[in-house]
């Protein structure tokens, strides 16, 4: 168990023992070493299989909306999760005074797909240190640099440190170059419109409509999603071209000014479909036009909610 893990566990134990929180959301060890699972600890004796490492791939802010507003929630937050929590507070999904945020400066999430591509599906153990990752399979051993396993969203992360956590454990991480964050969307916008449409079609047509992206996204908390709505039926729910394209366009559009670019949707997708090139474009638009970056504090309303009469100069007739 690493030093960071021990400190986090002690902190979770303290919160639960002193009854400062009703539930502590963290990660739990699983039989599959690449997939630590989100866990909901209500008593300190459940903390035995507590785990925290760079393979914890879920955005825990997703689970904030699953509890009643009165529940006091303790939670581990990295930079992106902290932003998600902030935005959920802006959208009044949970009062800030009922949340205890334990911040962890994040060194990036390792993409489990990259590990299985290089080492095969069968993995017996993974050992992570700050310099290298040791992967053991039944037949051989592999060694990787952290850089080569980073998930694409984490490789261009602009906010690895928690913003307004109640307690930060660990040393702050150096933020990466902000220009790098924009590179993907700039490259995509640079292509001809026909190539962009082909790219989009190629990504959308692989979709199997499992909605794992929706289930992984902290901002998708609607009681009934527009694709599940029966009367009126907004869009085809079957695996048809029109239905799949609608799902990808509207799912991204519903994240306008709300997406923190954590990449949880891409990591959850079983078909390895890229989605952040859509949400990032909308984020860039919101930043340029309304100077809004999602989740940097827990007060500012997103652009779609914050329209005023000052907008009237923007109407182009």
């Amino acid at each position, binding site marked *: 168990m690493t030093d960071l893990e021990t400190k986090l566990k002690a902190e979770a134990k303290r919160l639960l023992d002193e009854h400062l929180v009703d539930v502590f959301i963290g990660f739990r060890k699983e039989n599959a070493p690449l997939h630590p699972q989100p866990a909901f600890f209500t008593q300190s004796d459940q903390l035995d299989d507590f785990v925290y490492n760079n393979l914890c791939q879920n955005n825990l802010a997703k689970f904030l909306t699953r509890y009643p507003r009165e529940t006091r929630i303790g939670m581990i937050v990295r930079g992106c999760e902290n932003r998600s929590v902030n935005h959920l507070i802006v959208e009044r999904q949970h009062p800030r005074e009922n949340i205890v945020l334990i911040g962890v400066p994040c060194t990036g999430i390792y993409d489990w797909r990259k590990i299985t591509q290089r080492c095969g599906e069968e993995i017996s153990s993974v050992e992570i240190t700050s310099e290298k990752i040791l992967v053991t399979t039944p037949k051989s051993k592999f060694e990787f640099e952290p850089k080569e396993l980073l998930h694409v969203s984490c490789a261009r992360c602009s906010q690895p440190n928690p913003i307004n956590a109640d307690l930060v454990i660990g040393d702050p991480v150096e933020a990466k170059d902000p220009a790098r964050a924009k590179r993907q969307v700039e490259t*995509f*916008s640079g292509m001809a*419109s*026909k*190539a*962009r*449409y*082909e790219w*989009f079609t190629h990504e959308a047509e692989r979709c199997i409509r499992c909605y794992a992206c929706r289930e992984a996204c902290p901002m998708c908390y609607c009681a009934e999603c*527009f694709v599940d709505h029966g009367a009126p039926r*907004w*869009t*085809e729910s*079957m695996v*048809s*071209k*029109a*239905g799949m*394209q*609608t799902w990808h*366009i*509207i799912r*991204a*559009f519903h994240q*306008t000014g709300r997406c923190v670019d954590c990449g949880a949707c891409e990591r959850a997708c079983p078909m390895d479909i890229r989605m952040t090139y*859509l949400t990032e*474009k*909308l984020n860039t*638009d*919101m930043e340029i036009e309304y100077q809004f970056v999602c989740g940097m504090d827990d007060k500012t309303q997103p*652009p*779609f909610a914050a*329209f*005023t*009469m000052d*907008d*009237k100069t*923007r*109407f*182009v*007739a």
Partner: protein
Amino acid sequence: MSAQEPNIVLFQCQWCLYAKTDQDWVENALPENMHLVKTSCTGRINPLFVLNAIQGGADGVMISGCKPEVCHFKEGNLGARRQLTAFQSLLNHIGYDRSRIRFVWMDLQDTGRIQKELAVFEKDLTEMGMSGVLVTRKPGFEGGMHD
């Protein structure tokens, strides 16, 4: 309907045409290649409506609403402008020409403007030709079935 005539869907806020003659023209005398969807306010226009029209074979979508100060619901059009322009930008990002979605914000004295705007839009769309992008369904009046 000949191949040269582009299909246009007009989303119209029911309050935006102040002259009765204009409203009557839009409701009763639209050319055959144009389709009217009358809404209670531009704020009611869900981006899904626009996408649905495009997927069903519309070559262009025109959205006509009121000027900021004169919205019947005070600020419906302010929200609509933010949402729909962001949506236009997203569609442009995935390869759908942004000029195929056009906004017209009507003022009190703009009698007879909608006819002119539609004529200009039709001319521009004819020059651009068929869209082809994002058209994935048959139109509603042919059953609206998927590919």
